[in-house]
């Protein structure tokens, strides 16, 4: 991350800025020569269809473009640069060999419309990844298609709908979610046309089993559960929860956002879940890409298999790999995206799993849990924990005490920036006041965990004596706090020439 620098550009900007916009750097006539020729095409397009409005894309030389994006990159904090303890996001190190694997021409330069016989390597990799994820999750079948966790939720709830309807059970209209659930859970249920019922958590941070039982009925499609949940806690009565849902005829969706904690510890398939998604950009180390794309494979039990999206990747008796469409899978919910999955991301996940192997995955889950518990032990002398239980791979503090002393959870987050760290997730889960949700992952060395704890403790001490100073943070980042209210009140969503 660079310091607070104004770049010398000579460009006229409408206000002081860290880096001019592409549009402010451009000059008409400036251009590279990446592709040229074929003016004769102009006569091939009928006049009625030709572009009549200007095409004011910026005109820049390649060196300018390179400097611009290099400067922008330098304004970012990233896992490559330091600890990024966003809870529920599993910001572990992203190995470089996996990027190189994805860029091999045999993986990057193949088209999804190529015939199966020309993409046997890609199909083999996908098939083997399906098998690996089935073993890791304890499920029977896997679709690699969902582009993200939320996309997997949507896919699964549509499959739940198809499952019930195939049994002639058409009165189910409600999906239940805990109050600690990610916002995507209720949003996915709503996209599938269902109503959402929220059940509360109990005093130990579990789903309130009595509340759940009271909410269950023969109109319930299913229940969506994150385990460990968003408080970082393992659901203590997970089997009773799943049994209760099943007794009511519902299905249990596993939100696998926190799967990193379960590697080698327990498999959702052995705990009563009917399916679980895996965020490979969390658990299996594929880069988060500044927000995406990741991938969210969905692993399901046998009874949901007929409803999986198409195309399916299968291996036939002769060892040949094929994509099968809805003709062979008439109960399938259909296609959920253009093609077979975020292949370039899945290649990385495959390489990671093959690198770690069974023992490496076991060690990963245990190290992630140990790191979170160690960090919690270091910071709890000055911070209150939301629930008095041993967490799994992440934990949630409440800064309610610090708030009373004069600085909020958000202030603490911003003060961490001045300490050289990316802040944790703040204000989530919604059921914890002034929540700070911290997930260190297994790839941060003990020295870094110690330094992060020291930073959090220093901030707590500052709040006890001089909370005002914390409210000004950050002061060392490229920018000071941004005015989000103004951004929303008068949206400026694109460049408009002055």
């Amino acid at each position, binding site marked *: 991350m660079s310091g607070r620098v104004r770049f010398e550009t000579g460009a006229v900007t409408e*206000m002081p800025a860290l880096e001019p916009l*592409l549009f402010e750097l451009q000059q008409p006539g*400036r251009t590279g020569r990446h*592709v040229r020729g074929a003016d004769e*095409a102009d006569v*091939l397009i009928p006049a009625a*269809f030709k572009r*009549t*409005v200007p*095409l*004011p*894309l910026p*005109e*820049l030389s390649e060196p300018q*473009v*390179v400097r611009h994006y290099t400067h*922008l990159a330098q304004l*970012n904090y*990233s896992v490559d640069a330091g600890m990024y303890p966003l809870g529920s996001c599993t910001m572990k190190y992203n190995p470089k*060999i996996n990027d190189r*694997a994805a860029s*091999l021409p*045999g*993986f990057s*330069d193949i*088209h*999804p*419309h*190529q015939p199966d016989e020309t993409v*046997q390597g890609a199909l083999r990799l996908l098939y083997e990844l399906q098998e690996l994820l089935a*073993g890791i999750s304890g499920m029977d079948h896997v679709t690699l298609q969902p582009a993200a966790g939320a996309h997997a939720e949507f896919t699964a709830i*549509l499959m739940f709908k198809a499952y019930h309807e195939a049994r002639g059970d058409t009165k189910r209209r409600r999906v239940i979610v805990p109050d600690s659930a990610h*916002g995507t859970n209720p949003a*996915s249920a709503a*996209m599938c046309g269902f109503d959402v019922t929220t059940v509360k958590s109990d005093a130990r941070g579990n789903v309130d089993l009595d509340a759940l039982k009271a909410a269950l009925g023969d109109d319930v499609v299913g229940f969506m559960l994150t385990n460990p949940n968003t408080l970082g806690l*393992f659901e203590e009565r997970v089997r009773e929860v799943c049994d209760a849902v099943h007794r009511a005829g519902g299905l249990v969706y596993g939100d696998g956002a926190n799967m990193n904690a379960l590697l*080698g510890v327990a498999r959702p398939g052995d*705990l009563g879940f009917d399916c679980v998604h895996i965020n490979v950009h969390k658990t299996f180390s594929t*880069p988060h*890409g*500044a927000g*995406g794309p990741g*991938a969210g494979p969905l692993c399901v039990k046998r009874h949901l298999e007929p409803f999986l999206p198409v195309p399916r990747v299968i291996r036939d008796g002769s060892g040949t790999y094929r994509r099968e469409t809805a003709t062979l899978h008439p109960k399938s919910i259909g296609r*959920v*995206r*253009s*093609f*077979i999955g975020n*292949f370039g*991301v899945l*290649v990385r996940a495959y390489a990671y799993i093959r690198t*770690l192997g*069974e023992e490496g995955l076991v060690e*990963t889950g245990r190290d992630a849990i*140990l790191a979170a*518990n160690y960090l919690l032990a270091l910071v709890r002398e000055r911070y209150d924990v939301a629930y008095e239980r041993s967490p799994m791979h992440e934990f949630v503090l409440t800064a309610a005490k610090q708030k009373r002393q004069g600085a909020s959870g958000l202030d603490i987050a911003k003060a961490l920036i001045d300490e050289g760290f990316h*802040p944790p997730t703040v204000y989530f889960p919604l059921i914890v006041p002034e929540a700070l949700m911290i997930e260190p992952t297994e790839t941060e060395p003990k020295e870094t965990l110690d330094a992060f704890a020291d930073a959090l403790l220093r901030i707590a001490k500052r709040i006890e004596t001089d909370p005002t100073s914390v409210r000004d943070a950050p002061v060392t980042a490229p920018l000071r706090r941004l005015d*989000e209210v103004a*951004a929303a009140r008068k949206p400026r969503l*694109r460049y408009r020439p002055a």
Partner: protein
Amino acid sequence: MGQNPYSPHTDADRAAMLARVGITSVDDLLTAVPEDARGPAMGVPEGLSELEVQALMERIAALDRTAGSGPFFIGGPVQRRYIPAAVPALALRGEFLTAYTPYQPEVSQGTLQAIWEYQSLMSELLAMDVVNSSMYDGSTAVAEAALMAVRLTGRRRVVVANEVFSQFRQTLATYAKGPELEIVEVPSRELAANAAGAACLIVQHPDAFGTLVDVRTIADAAHAAGGLCVQVTEPHANALLDPPGALGVDIAVGEGQPLGIPLSFGGPHLGIIACRDALVRQMPGRIVGQTVDATGMRGFVNTLQTREQHIRREKATSNICTNEAIAAITASVYLSLMGPQSLRAAARTGVARAHALADRLARLPDVAIGAGGPFFDRFALRTPLGGELRTALLADGILVGEGIGRHYTGCGDGVTIQCTELVTDDDIDALVGAVKRMTARRPVAAS
């Protein structure tokens, strides 16, 4: 221990950490896990060294025929185009690639400004007011646009042209199952006549067969009936053709992969979605806005978040929480390097090659080109072999697009031929020669 090569912990580290927690084993932290489920076997093979993984991945990758290793005419939503060297060098920098969603804008200005610039560049290309970078791919962008139109009009009927990419229509059909929307498929030329009661008309221009479509008439019909017009577009076509914003379109969608993103067997790619200003509060996904920091410096933040799932939950405009940021940054770097000149040149070259190829094929006996109207940079090729031509050409090492008959009702049978700036004269010679030989070899029909 020492099984995860990316874990920094020594046994001494682990011992010190356990001691600080006050336990002797991680097992002491797992008491909530049902005992019989603990420590399961997962069936994953033993771990490999980096060298071994590299060799394994090379071995698997070598089983694929790469697009660039012979004549290649497959296209559609995903197109093999020239990617300038600086595109991956910049877009895949670790500072972009290994960051997350810019929740903390003070340390994420690189991502935020790059996405805001993407929104701006795409707005110019499409001549639309608002663009975001949250859609997974072209097909889900079509589905989200339909859901947006349903919310905006309160109507439950969506009319889509047959000549929209088959994968897009199939995904739309899946997304319609939850809210139980009525999806009607009609030929493009009948869209306008089916506007009554429709939330939106969905037209593709150029369509799946490259045919140019009169979008203005369809948009006018949609508006006259109180509905919206959604256009499926593709990036390079907009360099030469009137863009959605000039045609009266309300929501423009498409696949952004041709903008410098590798084929990668269909993903990860970039869904394009754009709309008019008035519709932005119903737009799905994350949007970046410009603002200032506490000292008046220009900066960027995620904005209009009250549409989104983390705040609105089941009342959100979508369940999307992804930003296809690295794909959008890739597209932006591509557009800034190409500029209007190289972008036009690439689009023109595809058009010129497609027409030169079509002219030569049309001179062969029993060969028909296109759907009758003017086309852009791809066309339908119909021969007596129908869709089987694809298999026949594969034996010659020539790859052409999907068979038409299976995926497009009432469009006859044949294959689609896509040209881009990467198609060479030799590729064209090879295809023309092979089609000539294969159609000549066929016995004369009895009639």
